C-alpha cells in the first residue's frame, strides 16, 4: 500500500527517530531511557523505512546485516560486564575513566556501564530488525 502522507512523513521521521534513539541511550545513564528503549526507537526508524519503501532498500540503507549487529551488541555487553573482572570487582560493576577531569569537574566521564548499555542498544536494535525483516519478507 502506498500512502503519500506516510512516505513524506517517513523522510523526516527516520532521521529524527535515529537521533532520538541515541539521545535516549545516553540519557538513560541517570534518567529514564537507556539501551533497551533506545534500541527499540532506532529499530522503529528502519521499520518505518521498510514499510514505506521496501525491505531491500531498508537493508541496503542499514549496510550491515541486522543479525550481525545483534551479536556484536551481545559481544559489547559481555565485554562491558566482564571488564570489572580485571579490576577484581563483581560482574557488571561499572569502571570509570574521567578524561580531562579538573578540580570540581568530572571532565569527560567514560565507563563500562556505557559500553554495556550500547551493547544492549545494538542487541535490541539488531534483534528486532532481524525479526521484522524476516516477517516482512514473508508476507
Amino acid at each position, binding site marked *: 500500500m502506498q500512502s503519500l502522507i506516510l512516505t513524506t512523513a517517513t523522510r523526516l521521521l527516520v532521521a529524527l527517530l535515529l537521533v532520538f534513539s541515541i539521545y535516549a541511550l545516553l540519557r538513560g545513564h541517570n534518567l529514564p531511557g537507556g539501551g533497551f528503549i533506545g534500541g527499540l526507537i532506532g529499530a522503529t526508524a528502519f521499520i518505518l523505512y521498510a514499510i514505506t519503501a521496501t525491505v531491500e532498500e531498508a537493508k541496503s540503507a542499514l549496510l550491515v546485516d541486522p543479525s550481525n549487529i545483534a*551479536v556484536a551488541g*551481545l559481544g559489547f555487553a559481555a565485554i562491558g560486564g566482564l571488564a570489572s573482572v580485571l579490576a577484581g570487582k563483581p560482574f557488571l560493576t561499572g569502571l570509570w575513566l574521567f578524561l580531562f577531569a579538573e578540580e570540581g569537574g568530572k571532565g569527560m566521564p567514560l565507563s563500562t556501564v556505557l559500553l554495556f548499555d550500547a551493547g544492549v542498544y545494538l542487541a535490541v536494535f539488531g534483534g528486532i530488525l*532481524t*525479526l521484522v525483516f524476516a516477517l516482512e519478507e514473508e508476507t
Partner: protein
Amino acid sequence: MSWLLVYPIVIPLLTAVLTYILRHNPAGRWISVAGTLALLLTSVMLLASVIREGVIAAQMSDWNAPFGITLVADYLSAVMVVITAITGLATVVYCLGEIPERLERSGFFALLQVLLMGVCGAFVTGDLFNLYVWFEVMLISSFGLLVMGGSREQLDGGVKYVTLNLVSTIMFLSGVGILYGITGTLNMADLHAAVREVENTGLLTTVAVMFLVAFGVKAALFPLFFWLPASYHTPPVAVSAIFAGLLTKVGVYALIRVFTLIFDQDVGYTHTLMLWMAVATMVMGVLGAAAMNDFRRILSFHIVSQIGYMILGLALFTPLGLLGAVFYLVHHIIVKANLFFIAGVAKRIGGSTDLSKLGGLYANAPVLAFLFLIPAFSLAGFPPLSGFWAKFLIVKAALDAQMWIVAGVALAVGLLTVFSMTKIWGAAFWPDHPEGTKPRLSDIPVFERLAMMLPVGALALLTCVIGLFPEPFVTFAETAAGQLLDPTDYISTVLGVQP
C-alpha cells in the same frame, strides 16, 4: 562474590557470540558443544557448592541487596540449572545430526545458546524485574528458533506463540509495577518481609492472581494452555524438545518460587484456585492427547497434562506436595525432552510424525522401540521408572491432605496417559509401515545416527537411574521443599551477603 552463580549466564553468552562468528565454519557447532559442556561442568560445581554450604548468593555490580541485582541459588535453583545444562547438552548434540546447514548458517546454534542463557538466568535471579528480563530473552530467542526456516506452518505457530506470550508478559510487568508501588522493592527476599506489612491485602491478592495468570500462560496451565499444542509441533524436533523440556518448566519454577516466597499470605484463596486449575489442566491435557493423531501433538498435550501434577504439588502446599513437585519437575524435563528426540528419529526414518503414516519401527528399529518404552512408561508412571516415584509422591501428598477427588483424578489421568502411549505404540511401532518401507536406524549416516541416538540413550539411562535409586533424589527434593517452605536461610543469605 561467587563466580559460580555468574557462569550459567556468561558461558552461554560468550558461546553464543563465538558460535555466531564461526557459523559458516564447522568449528562453530563444536564450540557450541564445548560451551554447553562447560556450562554443565560449572553448574554441577554450583550444585556441589550449594549442597556443601547451603544457599549461596552474589550481588552484581557492587550494590548491596535489595538495591542491586542479586543472583542466588538454593537447592531448587541449583538443580534446575544442572538439568538445564543436561537438556541443553543433549539438544546441542542432537542438533549435530538434525539441523541442516542452511539453518546453521543463519545462526541457529547461537540462538540456542541465547535461549539457554535466558533459562539459566531465570533460575538464578533473585529479583523480580530481572526475572522479567530473562523471560523476554527467552521469548525473543524462542520465537526466533520457532520461525527459523520460515515455512508457513512455522510462522503460524510462531505468531500464536508470541502473541499469547506477550499477553502474559504484559500481565507480569503490570503485576511487577503494582507490587513495586505497594512495597517499594522487587528483591524477592526483601519482598517476603515487605508484603507482610502491606495493609491492603485485597490488592495484594489481586497482584498474586496477576502473577498466577502471567506464569500460568508460560507454564501452560488450564485455561491458558492453547498456544502450546498450536506451536510445538512445527519447528525442528530438537527445538521442540528443548522447548518441551525447559520453557514451560521455567513458568512452573517461577510459580513455585513466587507462591512460596512472596504470596503465601492468602493460601486459602490463591492456592485453592491453583489446585482446581491444576486438576483441570491434568484432565484437559490428557483428553487432548487422547484425541490427537500426531506423534508430536500427542506429546505436546502431555506436557500440559503433566504440568498439572507439578502445580498440584505446589497447590497442596504441604512439605510432601512440594517435594513431589520438585521431583516431578526434574523427572519430567528429562523424560519429555527424550520423547521428542525419539519422535524426531522416528520422523527421520519413518518419514512423518503423523501416526497414520508411520509404522514398522518395532520390527525394523528394535533399539529405538526399546528406548521409546523407557520414557513412555516413565511418563505414564510405571514402576520402577522415575515417573512412578514422581506420581506416587504427588498422589500420596493429595491423599495425606484428604483430597480424595483430586487424588482419584490424578490416578485416572495416569491411566489415560498409558492409553495414549499405547496409541503411539500401536500405530508407529507395532504394525507394518503403511507404504511398505522398512524404516531402519542404519538408514541414517553413522555420524548423524550417533549424534541423534546418544542423547536418547543417555537420557533414558538417567530416567532408569532416578527410578532405580530414588533415595538420594527424594532426600534432595525434601531439602529443597524444606527451603521453599521455610525461606529463612534464603532471605538471610540474600540480604546478608556483601558484594
